[in-house]
């Protein structure tokens, strides 16, 4: 099956730093790829570059047959008819001066999808699909809670009936009891509208829950990708292993078990260089000079399990 999204050697450079450094991956139609990484790993930049919201410095991003990689300006507009984004901060992602109806009507008008009664019908259907009543339409964002705002943000992405959505930390700003509502909503919409997701989060448990396949990002590079079950059962990259070891679990017995496996002390290898493996400085398995000489390529260690490590 041809992938819906194909990203090849995508790089985004800001001033001197490479936020995204030669990233490649595919997403099959109907699949959810979970992208996980710590703050500053470049996962949000990658998400924005994939849909062309940020023009890439080099490389390709082909979504639904449209190559947007390094395009700027209105050339990207054609893609957004079919690829949309759900943002992180429900307080920043809605224009405070626009009613819900106006916010939802924007894409319909700009893309010339529908107008008048037809647009009205679409707006109603979409907001209701996202779990808000039509009575919400004439109101302003400030009248809604964080969770409700996130529903509005999802409706805005959904209204063009895209087939691909980048969800950038869609639940991390929400309270725990609200997170589950939004995760469930995104999963319901996926099956109802046949969506494909790139789901970005720093929460490993959320990523495990929503993803078919998971990509782990560290300092601008993908270090491991695998089907969710495989990755969580047998992580191969030392960084993935560290991440998974670090997360406490809400079960006292399991937590005691986890802590037994954690060595605790942080590793610092002074031999690491900028040319080598990005994780070399913190890696407990690093061997020098191999790890400081050359950055390892992402390569298949098992079918569908790619790891970027010299020794994994």
């Amino acid at each position, binding site marked *: 099956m041809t992938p819906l999204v194909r990203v090849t050697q995508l790089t985004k450079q800001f001033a001197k730093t490479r936020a995204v450094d030669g990233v490649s991956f595919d997403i099959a139609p109907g699949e959810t790829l979970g992208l996980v990484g710590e703050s500053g790993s470049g996962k949000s930049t990658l998400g924005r570059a994939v849909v062309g919201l940020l023009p890439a410095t080099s490389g390709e991003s082909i979504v639904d047959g449209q190559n947007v990689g390094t395009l700027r300006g209105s050339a990207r507009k054609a893609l957004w008819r079919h690829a949309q984004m759900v943002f992180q901060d429900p307080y920043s992602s809605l*224009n405070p001066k626009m009613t819900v109806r106006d916010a939802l009507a924007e*894409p319909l008008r*700009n893309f010339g999808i529908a107008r008048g009664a037809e647009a009205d019908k679409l707006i109603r259907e979409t907001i209701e699909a996202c779990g808000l009543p039509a009575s919400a339409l004439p109101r302003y964002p400030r009248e809604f809670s964080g969770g409700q705002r996130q529903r509005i943000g999802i409706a805005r992405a959904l209204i063009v009936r895209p087939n691909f959505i980048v969800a950038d930390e869609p639940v991390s700003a929400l309270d725990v009891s609200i997170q589950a509502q939004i995760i469930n909503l995104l999963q319901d919409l996926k099956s109802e509208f046949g969506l494909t997701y790139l789901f970005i989060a720093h929460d490993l448990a959320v990523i495990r829950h929503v993803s078919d396949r998971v990509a782990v990002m560290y300092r601008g590079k993908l270090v491991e990708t695998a089907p969710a079950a495989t990755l969580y059962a047998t992580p191969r990259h030392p960084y993935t292993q560290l991440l998974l070891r670090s997360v406490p679990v809400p079960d006292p017995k399991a937590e005691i078990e986890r802590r037994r496996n954690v060595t605790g002390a942080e590793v610092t290898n002074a031999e690491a260089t900028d040319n080598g493996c990005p994780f070399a400085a913190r890696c407990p398995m690093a061997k020098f000079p191999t790890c400081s000489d050359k950055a390892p390529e992402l390569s298949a260690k098992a079918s569908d399990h790619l790891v970027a490590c010299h020794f994994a």
Partner: protein
Amino acid sequence: MKTAATLPTPWFAPAWLVRFLRSPISTVVGSLLVLVVVAGVILAPLITHADPMALSSDTLLEPAWAHPMGTDDLGRDELARVLYGGRASLVIGLFSALLSVILGMTIGMVAGFFGGAIDETLMRITEAFQILPKLLVAVVVVSLIGSGLTNEVLVIGLLSWPATARVIRGRVQVIRHEEFIAAAEMSGASWLRVLVRHVAPNVVSFLLVSASLQVASAIMSESFLSFLGLGDPAHPSWGLLLQQGQLFLSDAWWLTTFPGIALAMTILGLNLLGDGVSGSRIVAGSRR
């Protein structure tokens, strides 16, 4: 809120009045002051029948019933001169503020919205303009090109835009990085539509504050020029009246007191209004 708005209100307390009186005290006092001044200046012929230019032999009279603010050295009625002088001050203030706000808004919006090298260049220029002693520049230019309403408006307006540009640019930069702007782009909006429909509405209140402070500052600048003898003698403004008052400082206190009160009242009103609209004194306090 909704129920309050739909309830019928008595004629003497319509909803807008109630809302106005509930706004910050500085807004209320500020707008009342401005209102009084503007009304006085516009309705000058109804308030006094005296001609501000008519000379008489009653020179340097103390304030009395016939001349509530006294008369000047040429026997002109000071009340009339203050009222009509306000026209010159307000007109110059309004028009130069209009010029500087339009300039500042355009430059601030462009710099904040496009960022990068454009922003860098525009901000360096803005900074340079801000460091320049603007009143002294105005003095030199007006001395060279001659005084007159138009020249004063142009000079003050062209020198005062940096304050507005910086406020607007700062605000636009904040908004530019809000996620709803990225969302608007992805909604297929052109950059012009993003700017007009998504950025501008979130800048308007800052623009109002800036405009009100600009009018105050322009009136102040004009009075400075007039005081140095660079005003338009055909349209004597408050500053010009104060310059004349300086000559008779020890003989005729009323010639400095009354025009000064009018001037200070107007500027205070506008500053209060700016403070009140910004919701706190912080916006006014951080205009740089």
